[in-house]
């Protein structure tokens, strides 16, 4: 495999975009990324687009071909929409990376897009529940907040966990959201405000949950010989790994861990030839506050059972041992489901270029983690700014 670089990035602000179609969101992000890469459109050899619920919520599928047409990309290139629930964007990135790394093309466009805020909470819950094995799990009435409510109680029993420890993650990420101009829902919250918010899936409360979001992000990946076309620092992709895990909650032997994350992280560290302690900045899949605790431990960044305690001690802040979700994460930046995996990489690229609004000083190596369904699919990417 040959080296692959991120040479162009683009993103819409995350939030409510009621007057903008999902195609237009994807176009806005894509034009930014292509222009930043300095490449001509006819140099793009493939397009991968991550999306989850544009069918049920927007009545529009075949988004990859539609967006390629509106971007005026060269005719007949392979344009593929991929779906893996909340990990759709991460999967799109990995497939584009594979195409460039294996020489199928010299440059690729990756897009993640979702539009969901126009739907009612019940409609959205139903659409998102398509990511569950509805024959075996969904029949019980389990929802995704419910999945993390179950995980919280199991973790509390196994390791001990307080409301304030979990709230430390909410406070950190919401506070970082205030610093990120792309974020939907930054806030300066107190422990009391978080503890007083309504219950959603006990013990999970409102501020433990990411918001519904509209938004899109895009990246241009290229081989080394095309990096010079961009005025920006190219960021090398050291590893891009995708794994699968149990599609039903009842098939997880331990509710405090996702095997797909553990395996993806192990493979990614090996491929990148680094240790977890070398990672400076992390964007991980905090769809719920409890998820950040589990993910940070599954990724080997925090010792098992210490996720909440590390957050409460400030060890996962931008000036801590490892900076987690300096963007505000899904909790504050928002979670346009199919866009998230691509947007996480956009955030890490800006950190490694030294351009981020909430900078992690001296960051050289970044990691992104995108998890879908009940842990049925996971992607982990490791990126580095070359000296």
């Amino acid at each position, binding site marked *: 495999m040959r080296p692959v670089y991120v040479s162009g990035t683009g993103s819409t602000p995350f939030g409510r975009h009621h007057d903008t179609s999902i195609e237009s969101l994807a176009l806005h992000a894509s034009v930014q990324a292509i222009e930043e890469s300095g490449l001509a459109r006819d140099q793009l050899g493939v397009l991968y687009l991550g999306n989850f619920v544009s069918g049920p919520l927007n009545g529009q599928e075949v988004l990859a071909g539609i967006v390629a047409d509106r971007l005026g990309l060269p005719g007949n290139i392979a344009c593929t929409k991929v779906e893996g629930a909340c990990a759709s964007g991460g999967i799109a990135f990995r497939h584009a990376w594979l195409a460039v790394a294996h020489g199928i093309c010299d440059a690729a466009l990756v897009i993640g897009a979702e539009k969901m805020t126009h739907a009612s909470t019940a*409609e959205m819950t139903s659409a998102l529940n398509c990511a569950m094995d509805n024959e075996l799990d969904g029949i019980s009435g389990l929802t995704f907040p419910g999945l993390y409510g179950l995980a919280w109680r199991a973790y509390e029993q196994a390791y001990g966990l307080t409301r304030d420890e979990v709230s430390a993650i909410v406070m950190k990420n919401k506070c970082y959201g205030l610093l990120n101009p792309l974020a939907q829902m930054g806030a300066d919250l107190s422990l009391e405000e978080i503890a007083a918010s309504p219950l959603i899936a006990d013990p999970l409360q409102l501020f433990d949950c990411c918001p519904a979001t509209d938004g899109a992000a895009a990246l241009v990946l290229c081989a080394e010989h095309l990096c010079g076309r961009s005025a920006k620092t190219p960021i090398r992709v050291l590893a891009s790994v995708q794994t699968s895990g149990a599609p039903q909650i009842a098939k997880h032997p331990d*509710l405090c861990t996702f095997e797909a994350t553990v395996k993806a992280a192990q493979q990614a560290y090996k491929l990148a030839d680094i240790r977890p302690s070398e990672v400076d900045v992390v964007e991980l899949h905090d769809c719920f506050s409890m998820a950040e605790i589990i993910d940070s431990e599954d990724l080997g960044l925090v010792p098992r059972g210490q996720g909440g305690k590390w957050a409460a001690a400030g060890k996962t802040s931008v000036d801590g041992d490892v900076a987690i979700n300096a963007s505000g994460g899904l909790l504050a930046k928002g979670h346009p489901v199919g866009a998230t995996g691509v947007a996480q990489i956009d955030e890490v690229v800006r950190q490694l270029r030294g351009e981020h609004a909430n900078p992690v000083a001296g960051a050289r190596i970044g990691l992104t983690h995108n998890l879908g369904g009940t842990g049925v699919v996971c992607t982990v990417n490791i990126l580095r700014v070359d000296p």
Partner: protein
Amino acid sequence: MTAGTLDLVLRRCQECGALHEHRPAFCSVCFAQTFEDHVVSGQGTLVSWTTIRKPPLRLREQGAYHVAVIDLYAGLRVTARLQLQEAHVTTALVGASVQLTHQMDGVGQPIHVFQITAQQRDH
């Protein structure tokens, strides 16, 4: 809906003996397609539970309900409903003993409903 204390009917692969909660098209262990009913105790242990206060559209009329993960004494983990007495809503403990009491109509297959029988595992 049947009130009372129930055993659970699982499906056992006639080729390899693997247990399945519902009848699969193929056994995920050996690809066999023949299964037989296998009755096991409806008793188990509460692994975890939550209260769903924002149900999906199709369940909205039910209001809030409890979902649990249960380890059956027969050796299979299942996702099910949990019926809690008011006194247990804030005190139910992970590790409590539970018993299948009835089944609700699901979409094509029954939803198991368990109740807590003891706050500690009783076997």
